[in-house]
């Protein structure tokens, strides 16, 4: 927990990590005994194509039902030892597939054949779960054509610079990825967004427009970047309706790497931040249990500590060391129980700290009253829910310790669900 300065008039100020200075190369984590992968689809009945005991190869697509688009890419060679339903954030139902690994890697050849035609279908079919988790779906949506692809070089949280580090390390792969994206989508306008203090060496090398953003938190949050680029923020229809699509630089690099090497990337670079705040970089197979990584760096986790996927402002706390790192996990942050701030069920006392710190001028004090009561649409209509750029600073300063950021994310998720259900009805 950080301390408020004695002079409460001054606002807290954070800067993004810039991946400058010499960073030790990532420690290679050996292939663990088991990996767990998530297929973002509900396991309704016994799956026709997934069975315990089925052998899988590295890079093989795993689907719940034959012909599904949604898949997971096996990061190891081995046999499936467990298939179970998994309850993800906001109650989404996924399928968890656990694979017992064998000693050696046998690459799957399906992608090597498909890569001859770098189309969006290929990208969606094989690379939607590569490190960086690119969301290919909106690019294929013909009703909302995308005209600008924003490649997001920074990390969306303080303390972490995994993504920026990778971007700096693999400029060639990023370039190759940009080329593939251009070919597959036909979109000319590709922008690379990166915190300004780390930008000077890269302009010119890359085949895209560079857009520096402030390195002060939260001015490089994706939604804030979108606002700086277009002057607008998406409403409940989401970013796709604005014709702008965000892809993380890590994902672009993974696409480039996949097409130049002919095999799907299955390793993810993760920063492990221990209780003292020391950062260790690691490269591990997607699906490696968190405990394996923590053990490698001798991070002792005790009862009532906290393990967080992501950074201190926008991350997700996890409940077990057995959970695997996913393709979007940039960092694992471990907090000792003595520094964990607790939330309360206090009402808003209208102190106004959130209003003054909000970079988006959202009237948080009024909005949170509606969200607490579950009146999400009123919050969106009257009190600028969709201007929130999801930085979490309001919860950071909240005197009543209300989980405002969570309320806002929940509200957006719920309204999004209603909206997409309505769209389905209309069709």
């Amino acid at each position, binding site marked *: *927990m*950080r*301390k408020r300065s*004695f*002079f*409460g*008039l*001054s606002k*807290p100020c954070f800067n993004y990590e810039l991946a400058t200075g010499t960073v030790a190369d990532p420690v290679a984590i050996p292939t663990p005994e088991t990996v767990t992968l998530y297929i973002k689809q509900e396991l309704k009945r016994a799956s026709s194509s997934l069975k315990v005991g089925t052998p899988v190869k590295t890079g093989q697509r795993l689907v719940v039902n034959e012909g599904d688009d949604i898949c997971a890419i096996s990061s190891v060679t081995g046999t499936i030892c467990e298939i179970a339903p998994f309850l993800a954030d906001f109650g989404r139902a996924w399928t968890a597939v656990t694979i017992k690994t064998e000693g050696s890697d046998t690459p799957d050849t399906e992608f090597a054949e498909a890569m001859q035609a770098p189309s969006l279908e290929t990208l969606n079919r094989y690379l939607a779960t590569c490190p960086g988790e690119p969301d290919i779906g909106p690019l294929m949506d013909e009703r909302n054509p995308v005209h600008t692809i924003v490649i997001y070089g920074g990390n969306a949280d303080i303390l972490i610079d995994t993504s920026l580090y990778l971007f700096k390390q693999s400029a060639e792969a990023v370039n190759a990825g940009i080329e593939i994206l251009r070919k597959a989508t036909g979109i000319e306008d590709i922008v690379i967004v990166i915190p300004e203090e780390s930008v000077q060496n890269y302009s010119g090398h890359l085949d895209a427009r560079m857009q520096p953003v402030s390195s002060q938190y939260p001015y490089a949050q994706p939604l804030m970047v979108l606002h700086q680029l277009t002057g*607008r*923020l998406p409403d409940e229809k989401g970013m796709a309706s604005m014709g702008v699509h965000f892809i993380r630089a890590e994902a672009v690099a993974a696409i480039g790497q996949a097409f130049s090497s002919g095999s799907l990337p299955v390793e993810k670079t993760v920063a492990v931040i221990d209780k003292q705040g020391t950062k260790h970089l690691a490269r591990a197979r997607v699906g490696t249990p968190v*405990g394996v990584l923590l053990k490698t760096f001798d991070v002792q*986790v005790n*009862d*009532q*500590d*906290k393990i*967080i996927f*992501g950074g*201190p*402002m926008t*991350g*997700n*706390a*996890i*409940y*077990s*060391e*057995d959970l695997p790192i996913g393709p979007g996990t940039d960092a694992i*942050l471990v*907090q000792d*129980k003595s520094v*964990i*701030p*607790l939330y309360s069920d*206090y*009402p*808003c*006392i*209208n*102190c*106004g*700290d959130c*209003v*003054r710190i909000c*970079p*988006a*001028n*959202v009237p948080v*004090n009024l909005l949170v009253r509606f969200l607490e009561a579950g009146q999400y649409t009123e919050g969106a209509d009257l009190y*600028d829910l969709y*201007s929130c750029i999801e930085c979490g600073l309001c*919860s*950071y*300063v*909240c*005197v009543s*310790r209300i*989980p405002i*950021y969570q309320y806002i994310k929940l509200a957006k998720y719920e309204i999004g669900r209603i909206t997409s259900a309505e769209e389905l009805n209309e069709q």
Partner: protein
Amino acid sequence: MNSKKTLIVSHAPFWHDGSGVPERSYHTMIAALPAACVGIAYYGAPALGVISLAIASAILWELLFNYASKRSITVGNGNAALIGLLIAMVLPASAPWWLVLIGTFLAIVIGMQIFGGIGANPFNPVALAIAILMVSYQNHLDFDAALVNFSLDFPSTTDPLAALKAFGPAAVENLNPIDLLMGRQVGGLGSSCGLAIAIGGIYLMLRGIIRWEISIAFIVGVFISAMLFNMSDPVRYAPPAFHLLTGYTLLGAFFLATESSSSPVNFIPMLIYGALGGVMTVLIRNIGAYVDGVIFAILLINLINPLVDKIRPKAIGKVA
């Protein structure tokens, strides 16, 4: 691998700046203490008695209400104690025990808890309670009558504001602003020493616990409107410094008008809110029926708070 460790999960963000409701209450009480101590120094044990009874009874009322309404116990956050202390500071040192009990009951139960507790009160609970007491028990809040049995070696043994109301500025001409600032005047037991209140207020502003915009705007509002009155007719209206240093002006500016749930949070509304409070104070004092206008002025600006707080900067990304 299959560990049985229990990890704590929660929502982001996982850092917090460490502020909290109890800290706010206790720091506000610390800021109010110098003024209360000056009251004890001038008025002695009776003042201490009023302060102790007010704090104790305020906590007790809140506790009783917590039990009666079957809600979680909230007295630990210090808000009730703070309200008790502020009630004591605006009462005369001679306030009888039942007046203190009624005052804290009005503030805690009528002023705050029946609206839903901390954060839900539309009016400042202290101002509301004192307003009811002022209307209901005029003699006990008339400082001249209430403090008649105290032997005080102040330059004037009458309430300066009451003297001003009755006899005009000529009656208070001999009062030295320094004496007023040091609290050598008849008034509420913790509200007469402008210096101590200002020190507490500046501490709160620096700590970011109260919004400096409200306090400054309130003081400027009092000063400018009093100055305009004084310029228009110095024979009938007292100079601005007199208005600033007498009655509840400074206590109102730093401790009452800034109560968080009944005041606005945006910049321009805070200025309007504070300035309007200052102007209303002087209007009530100069041409109204009451001796001191601060309490009623604060209730009035509490009323306009939801309305003025609609003046806010446009949120980013809005198309319309």
